[in-house]
């Protein structure tokens, strides 16, 4: 609700804007977080999309015949969970770039836009964390397999593929922590006295 009685105390590095009816400045910490989140999700998306490994696996049909060799390729798009992980990282990366531009353009002009950005920040936290959880679950499945349903593990064969996937998930997790801090830090800065 834009109105004259709205006040915000969210200002630039300790300088608080007390004017009535004026909306927020944007802190340098907020912008730095957005840049960090953008870079981390971009790196995670690139690393996982470049993840490919081909291994030649000897297949032994019976003991009398010599084993013949088949090349097997592990690529990220073979698993739907990894695709979902890539999509969420791409969405988060685009959103971080857009909100960075908007926050720079919007210095203290429109309150409604700031509310929308905060709202979308919270939504991105959920999306990114769910993508991380999905990829991590599939990664654990690849590392250990699941003996109860006879799903064999694949990471003993495709070790580089699994290591790269683990690195990408780790980077994306730090990116999602950055998004989480983007939600929490403005709230903390709003009332430093009450903490």
């Amino acid at each position, binding site marked *: 609700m834009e109105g004259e*009685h709205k*006040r915000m105390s969210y200002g630039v590095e300790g300088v608080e804007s007390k004017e009535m009816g004026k909306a927020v400045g944007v802190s340098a910490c907020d912008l730095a977080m957005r840049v960090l989140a953008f870079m981390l999700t971009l790196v995670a998306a690139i690393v996982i999309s470049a993840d490919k490994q081909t291994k030649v696996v000897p297949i032994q049909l019976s003991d009398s015949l010599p084993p013949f060799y088949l090349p097997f390729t592990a690529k990220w798009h073979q698993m739907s969970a990894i695709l979902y992980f890539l999509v969420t990282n791409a969405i988060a990366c685009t959103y971080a770039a857009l909100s960075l531009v908007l926050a720079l353009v919007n210095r203290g002009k429109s309150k409604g836009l700031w509310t929308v950005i905060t709202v979308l920040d919270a*939504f991105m936290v959920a999306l990114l*964390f769910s993508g991380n959880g999905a990829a991590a679950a599939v990664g654990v499945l690849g590392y250990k397999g699941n003996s109860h349903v006879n799903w064999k593990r694949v990471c003993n064969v495709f070790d580089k593929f699994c290591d790269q996937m683990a690195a990408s998930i780790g980077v994306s997790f730090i990116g999602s922590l950055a998004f989480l801090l983007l939600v929490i830090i403005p*709230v903390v800065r*709003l009332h430093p006295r009450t903490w």
Partner: protein
Amino acid sequence: MASTDLEYKSSSTQPLPAGVDYFKADVILRFMLLAASVVALGVIVSSDQTELVLFQGNLVPQPAKFKYSPAFVYFVAAFSVSGLYALISALASIAVIQKPEFKLKFLLHFIFWDALILGIIASATGAAGSVAYIGLKGNSHMGWIKVCNVYDKFCRHLAGSIAVALFGSIVTILLIWLSAFTIHSRVPK
């Protein structure tokens, strides 16, 4: 959102009736989160199923339990934490209605913990969802066969539990939105 009824005074302390709609919406959403967590937990914990499967040439009864997969175990743990948190914060929110001078302080704490719980719940939903999807469709590239054609009750329970978990995540997002919106419209300066 509950902001249409908010009134403002120029003084620094906000009077009580301004946020009554927010209080009610907050308590209702927290009880919905509690209900969603409890339902998701109940449905997944009761999902055990035993079927006769062909295993190394013999027909043996093989059980399918949620604890056979670490993703589902994490799902159960995460929603236990979320259910406990929802209960405690719902009671705290009700208590704050009686004493509205603590409201702003509680709102700040709520946003912090809500955001943490959202992260935990969303990752648990994603993890359980991805493993359940592999169970549903299998993965021919990795050599993982699908199991939901055999264990149908197990998969139905999983699907229901994950759907309720998704609803719980949306409720948590709404809680964060509500708290942020209320803080930024009621900041006394």
